[in-house]
């Protein structure tokens, strides 16, 4: 059993990891066909992951409702919303409109999901303004530099800022293109090297946490 639980997954990871790392550099039709098949499988697994996610969400909230835990009413709303949307979605065959006429699924999407998501995002502007007022303070020299840079970029990114301080557009562009890009690139390089190192550790079986715990 240990072979099935430990050695076999490690062996599969080693073989597929090395195979697909090499595949990138081999443009042979057989190698390309292998990639096509693998990505098709990935898409299929992606579809099942969606089902798994929805099932898990249903299960989690069902437990909350059954035990009447704090906030179980929200779980009930989630259940009603999800079941209702799935029902009208299946009824409409997943289409928002048929021959130009809006379906019930389209109505839910256009008049509930779109405004709700839009509102959530729009509210952020108010909270950001409030948070900026409360916490964006020049408490140290570094914070002061950040504060000044942020104000220049904010001015330079809107027509009114460029109208009031014509130089702000160019300075803002310089901050984004030079300072920001170089720092971001350094972070990206660091993260990428970390990802490469982690990939090697997984491929060669040094990092095994993805196998999970449980009994041997």
């Amino acid at each position, binding site marked *: 059993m240990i072979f099935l639980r430990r050695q076999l997954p490690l062996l599969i990871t080693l073989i597929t990891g090395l195979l697909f790392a090499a595949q990138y550099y081999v443009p042979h039709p057989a190698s390309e066909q292998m990639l096509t098949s693998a990505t098709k499988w990935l*898409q299929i697994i992606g579809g099942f992951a969606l089902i798994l996610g929805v099932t898990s969400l249903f299960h989690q909230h069902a437990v909350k409702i059954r035990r009447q835990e704090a906030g179980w009413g929200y779980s009930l709303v989630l259940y009603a919303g999800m079941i209702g949307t799935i029902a009208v979605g299946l009824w409409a065959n997943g289409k928002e409109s048929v021959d130009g006429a809006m379906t019930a699924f389209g109505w839910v*999407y256009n008049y509930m*999901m779109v405004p709700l998501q839009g509102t959530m995002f729009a509210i952020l502007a108010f909270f950001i303004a*409030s948070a900026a007022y409360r916490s964006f303070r020049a408490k140290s020299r570094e914070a002061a530099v950040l504060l000044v840079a942020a104000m220049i970029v904010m001015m330079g*990114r809107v027509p009114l800022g460029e*109208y009031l301080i014509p130089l702000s557009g160019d300075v803002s562009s310089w901050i*984004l*293109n030079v300072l*920001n890009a170089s720092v971001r690139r350094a972070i990206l390089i660091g993260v990428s090297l970390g990802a490469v190192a982690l990939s090697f550790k997984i491929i060669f079986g040094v990092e095994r946490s993805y196998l999970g715990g449980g009994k041997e």
Partner: protein
Amino acid sequence: MSLAERMLKIDRRIIFLVIGLCTLLPLLYPVGLPIRISSEVRGVYDHMESLPERSVFLLSIDFDPASKPELHPQAIALLRHAFRKDLRVIAMTLWVSGTGMAEQLVTQVAKEMGKEYGKDYAFLGWSPGGQAVIINMGQDLYSAFPSDYGGKPTKDLPVLDGVRNLKDVAYMVSLGAGRPGVEEWYVFGKDKYKFELGGGCTGVMAPGLYPLLRSGQINGLIGGLRGAAEYESLIGQKGKAVAGMDAQSATHLAIIVLVIICNVFYLSLQRAARTQRQIG
């Protein structure tokens, strides 16, 4: 409690009111300040302009309704430009929750520009897998999308004549609000299948994509509502983005003024505390 202390603990509803007014008033009474075109947005525009007629333009609408205010105007401006240039437009999305919105916007602009479905444009819809879809499209587009959003086999669409995979796409723009988005299209798409790539994103994401822009990994970037307004100005069809720029100007200015006020009171309090310590 001193004035400075009171001001620092100001009721946040007053700030909400200020931001609300700064958004509402410019929308009701627009000023229409001129918009300067940045080199990032011009990069996308110039490449679209350089494409010959009937070239294949792939637009991936990788956002959901939450980012609609910023990215919807970008998509509309790009589609108007593509249809005006008589490009073959293939639209799709990697975000399941954006599928309906994407279909509506493509249909709306195509109708406005008098384009015919199947011949001038197609909407492939959504397919599960995120970046796997990109790789799959790079290998074989018909394997990733055997049928379009309406269920028609993609192989029967005249708009896709001569298109086998991403290598046959003349230009691709991803309008992304997160992952999968512009970065994934570069890493899993352009890097291997060598097509020209441009990007569009929300304002907060734009600074993160500048490294890709500076290294030429993407040839242009439309950032936030400002980027959309610039693109609308470039194609000479001003829309919601240009209309929203006054409101954005006012709110930016309001936040800057609020931050300055907060810092003036904060520093005055610090100074008072220091003086008191010295006396004590």
